[in-house]
């Protein structure tokens, strides 16, 4: 018999243009990289940066779209737009920082950028995905690239080790994730979020669906590095090249949270009570554990790793709070956190210098004298992380706690503020090192390129600006979470 001709569904490439641009740029770099030896990194930096700019441009129209493209596999809406924006900003900054970083360490690795771009493309598919399959594929694209990237430093044992650990655990968790997807698929008959919602609307959700949900939750919790699925974080963050660590701590987290929120708010509202209970506990444990463990860290990358775990905890508070307020809080927090943390890691990269030689807190002694500018910027980022006004970090925490109290989670908030009081200790400890302690070795002023300076300035400026005039960006956040409800 003659097979009936396949007719393609109408494909809205406009919606995935940002991702496409990045992939394309990736290919260009890959090919060009083969022929270029000397300026490969510079070239790749330039191309990637350009790609990011273009992607930002083509991302804009998505804000006002509201459709399920590619036969309902991805959703093009303001939510997608917001996270694309976030991811692109993170990628852009990371690209700039990485360029300098690779040059300093004279690593001639155009592939680094290729993978970086692929990773962020993957993220975009992940956040846009409105089908478990799509989310999974995006997730894996992202993960595979990151596994490789974290192991990319040729001369570093730690880098390899990081890659190894990340890969094993990542594989483990994605297996779990898939099992959850399977169960959910089994109990609802589809992997499409909207269909899942429909299927679950009728009657109480069955055990299978719940278990499926739980396993998905584990999968996401792993990617967002929340306790007890966080164990990989400090090691991988420490081992991976610093700019990438920054990228992981914001980009991957953001993407994971985006998908997390989309799946749970959009597809599983019928089980909200259940997963709220679980997340409540996870949030508490995460906030406490992250902050406490960060207290005693001597390696700044590890410290920031634990702090990022803690921050994941705060974002979970937002998810627990739920509702538009909570989701919006999460988005705003992620926005603030992106700039803050990338900035912080940029400085870690600068101070780390060749071969990441200076990662200990004691290497920051006397920075206030030798490099006042760096110290100032670092303090700003740390204040933002600690949530001290008038920085974006403060507004972020403020939104989240407001949302939580609005939903009546007083204890969660109290634990939150107390743990962030703890966090003040270790953030201020760095400031103490920078300004109040004499340097151990001869402190020379560190040279860092215009690119770094640019990245730092941008981050700092944004932190202050959206910290003092948050209205507009809160507006964005609120507007962007509309599609979820």
């Amino acid at each position, binding site marked *: 018999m003659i097979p009936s001709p396949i007719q393609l569904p109408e494909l809205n490439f406009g919606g995935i243009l940002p991702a496409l641009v990045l992939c394309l740029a990736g290919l260009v770099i890959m090919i060009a990289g083969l022929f270029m030896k000397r300026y490969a990194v510079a070239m790749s930096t330039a191309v990637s940066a350009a790609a990011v700019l273009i992607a930002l441009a083509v991302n804009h129209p998505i804000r006002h779209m509201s459709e399920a493209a590619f036969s309902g596999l991805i959703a093009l809406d303001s939510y997608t737009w917001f996270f694309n924006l976030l991811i692109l900003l993170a990628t852009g900054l990371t690209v700039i920082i990485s360029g300098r970083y690779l040059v300093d360490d004279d690593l001639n690795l155009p592939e680094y950028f290729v993978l970086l771009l692929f990773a962020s493309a993957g993220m975009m598919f992940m956040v846009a995905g409105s089908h478990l399959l799509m989310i999974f594929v995006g997730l894996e694209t992202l993960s595979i690239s990151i596994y490789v990237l974290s192991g990319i430093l040729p001369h570093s044992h730690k880098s390899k080790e990081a890659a190894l650990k990340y890969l094993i655990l990542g594989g483990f968790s994605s297996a779990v994730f898939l099992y959850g997807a399977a169960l959910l698929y089994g109990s609802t008959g589809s992997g499409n979020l909207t269909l899942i919602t429909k299927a679950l609307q009728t009657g109480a959700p069955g055990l299978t669906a719940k278990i499926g949900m739980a396993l998905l*939750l584990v999968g996401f919790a792993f990617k967002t590095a929340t306790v007890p699925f966080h164990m990989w974080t400090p090691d991988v963050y420490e081992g991976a090249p610093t700019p990438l660590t920054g990228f992981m701590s914001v980009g991957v987290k953001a993407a994971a949270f985006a998908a997390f929120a989309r799946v749970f708010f959009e597809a599983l509202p019928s089980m909200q009570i259940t997963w709220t209970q679980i997340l409540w506990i996870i949030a508490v444990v995460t906030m406490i554990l992250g902050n406490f463990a*960060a207290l005693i860290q001597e390696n700044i990358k590890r410290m920031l790793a634990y702090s990022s775990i803690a921050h994941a905890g705060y974002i979970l508070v937002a998810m627990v709070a739920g509702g538009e307020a909570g989701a919006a809080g999460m988005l705003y927090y992620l926005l603030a956190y992106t700039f803050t943390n990338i900035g912080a890691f940029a400085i870690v990269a600068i101070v780390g210098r060749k071969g990441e030689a200076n990662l200990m807190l004691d290497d920051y002694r006397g920075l206030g004298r030798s490099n006042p500018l760096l110290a100032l910027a670092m303090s700003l980022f740390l204040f933002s992380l600690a949530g001290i006004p008038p920085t974006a970090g403060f507004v972020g925490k403020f939104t989240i706690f407001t949302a939580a109290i609005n939903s009546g989670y007083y204890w969660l908030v109290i634990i939150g503020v107390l743990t962030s009081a703890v966090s003040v200790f270790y953030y201020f400890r760095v400031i103490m090192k920078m300004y109040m302690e004499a340097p151990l070795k001869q402190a020379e002023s560190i040279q860092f390129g215009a690119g770094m300076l640019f990245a730092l300035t941008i981050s700092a400026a944004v932190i202050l600006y959206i910290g003092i005039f948050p209205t507009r960006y809160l507006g964005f956040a609120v507007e962007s979470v509309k599609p979820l409800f």
Partner: protein
Amino acid sequence: MTKFVWLIPILPLIGFLINGLFGKRFSEKAIGWIAAGAVGAAFVLAVSIFFEIISMPAASRSVQTIVYTWILSGDLNISFGFLVDPLSMIMLLVVSGVGCIIHIYSIGYMHGEYGFRRYFAYLNLFVFNMLILVSANNFLLMFVGWEGVGLCSYLLIGYYYEKKSAADAGKKAFVVNRVGDFGFLLGMFLIYVTFGSLNYLDVFPAAQEKLPYAGELVTGITLLLFLGATGKSAQIPLFTWLPDAMEGPTPVSALIHAATMVTAGVYMVARCSVLFALAPASMTVVAVIGGATAFFAATIGITQFDIKRVLAYSTISQLGYMFMACGVGAFASGIFHLMTHAFFKALLFMAAGSVMHAMSGELDMRKMGGLKDKLPYTHWTYLIGTLAIAGIFPFAGFFSKDEILFYSFERHVGFWIIGATAALMTSFYMFRSVYMTFYGRSRVDHETAHHLHESPFIMTIPLMILAFLSTVGGFVGIPVFEGLNRFDAFLAPVFAPAKQIIAHGAHHGHHNVTLELVLMAVSLGIAIVGLLLARHLYIVNTSVPDRIVEEYRDVHGLVYNKYWIDELYDFLFVNSIVNFSRFLWKRFDESVIDGAVNGIADLTRKWGNRISKLETGLVKDYALSILIGMVVIIGFLVLK
């Protein structure tokens, strides 16, 4: 004229400011005369106002002048104002007059001292505060003066601040006074809460209807106020500071610790006569305390050898007299004695100062004797002073003291006995000091002996003036014969209400002339006995005192060491509080509270350490933790 009363205190203040701010480049003379002039001017003004007052009808001899509203908060309205009435008038005269004289004396006495300017600045400041104290029209302003004089006495006692004893004495004076002020303050609060005002003219007239006779409230108020008085006037239990206060320059002792400041308490009690009259219990307390102080101070006075300390204790005991007078309701007599005492005690102190001056700072009477020829003026003036204080007719002390004794007899014979005994001792130890200092054979060592010299006129003339006053001062208030007692009559309008309340409260016998005459004779006799006794022991056979001391070693020791009151207080209050505070600081503040705080911090860090030790670096453990989390969640869902 009365509306310029505010100038009286202000003039010394101006003097203080001039000397204090610009005095650096002035000569000693200039400084001295500016200071003295300021006070003198005040005195002149006071006198002129006095004449204006007495020209008024007796009823309306109370003029209030309000300069400005000082504190205005809610219903609390306290003005910076003055009240001129017979009582404050007398105080003004005494303070400014005696003050002026002592200023002049000081010019000579302090000649060449380090910090001459500082001295006069303080002295002016003191006079300012004292005048404020006596002329204020409300309790709070009086309190200002009250604390002010306390401050000045602190500063002047500690004038030789490099001497530790002096500095200590100053602090002691201030702190003990503060204890008294604490009572005064609380008394004020009670008054304010009851009357809604602190102004005399609002409080006293309203007292009778606002406060029930012998009620708890009024008793409380008066006792608290009296606590303040005991502090300022060195009565039991707060008298310990006055003897130490002798560390200050002698004129200071004369002015502050004899003539004026220490009498502030008496003034205050007299001022509140109405309130006290309403609280018989308090009256009794005042009388008893006064009598007791008079007695005990006298006993101590007997044993002392430091001439100034003898005078100090006599001051305390005289103050006791005054309080006893107030306590038995003879406020006028109290004030009368206050005035006369101001004269002769200032005189005595300054004479003693002159002796000191001559003896190049020597104070121990055992190292004196036979000075009468070397220091004629000093000798005579001192002798007059002694006669006055001993109460020999016709010197000032005689009248005032006998009036007090008479009234106390009327109140209760016990008071009279105490008073009389005290009088005996007073005349004894005063003459003892006279004999030991001026008579008998000289016990002066040589080098002091050969530049032994009479003081300059600038010092002796003030002595003479005061001697004159203590001679004739008594005649303004001749008791016994009604009408002759001008002083009483002048003060009558002030104390009338109190008198009437007392009369109305306890029955009060009519004025018994014969009794009074008898008592006079008796006390005169007592005084003479004291004189003779002293003469016998310190001129005729001088060995006796030592033998007595031998006999009653322990008794003498007890008395000589002022009954170990100081040591007792140190043990009871000072040390215990200091030790307890140290305990609080080290054990509580640093161990308990800070311990808790740091403990929490350490605990947090410890847990941080523990938690991060979970991060073993073994990938399998990480997988395990994921598994645990997973199983727990699923178990939770399945088993729920």
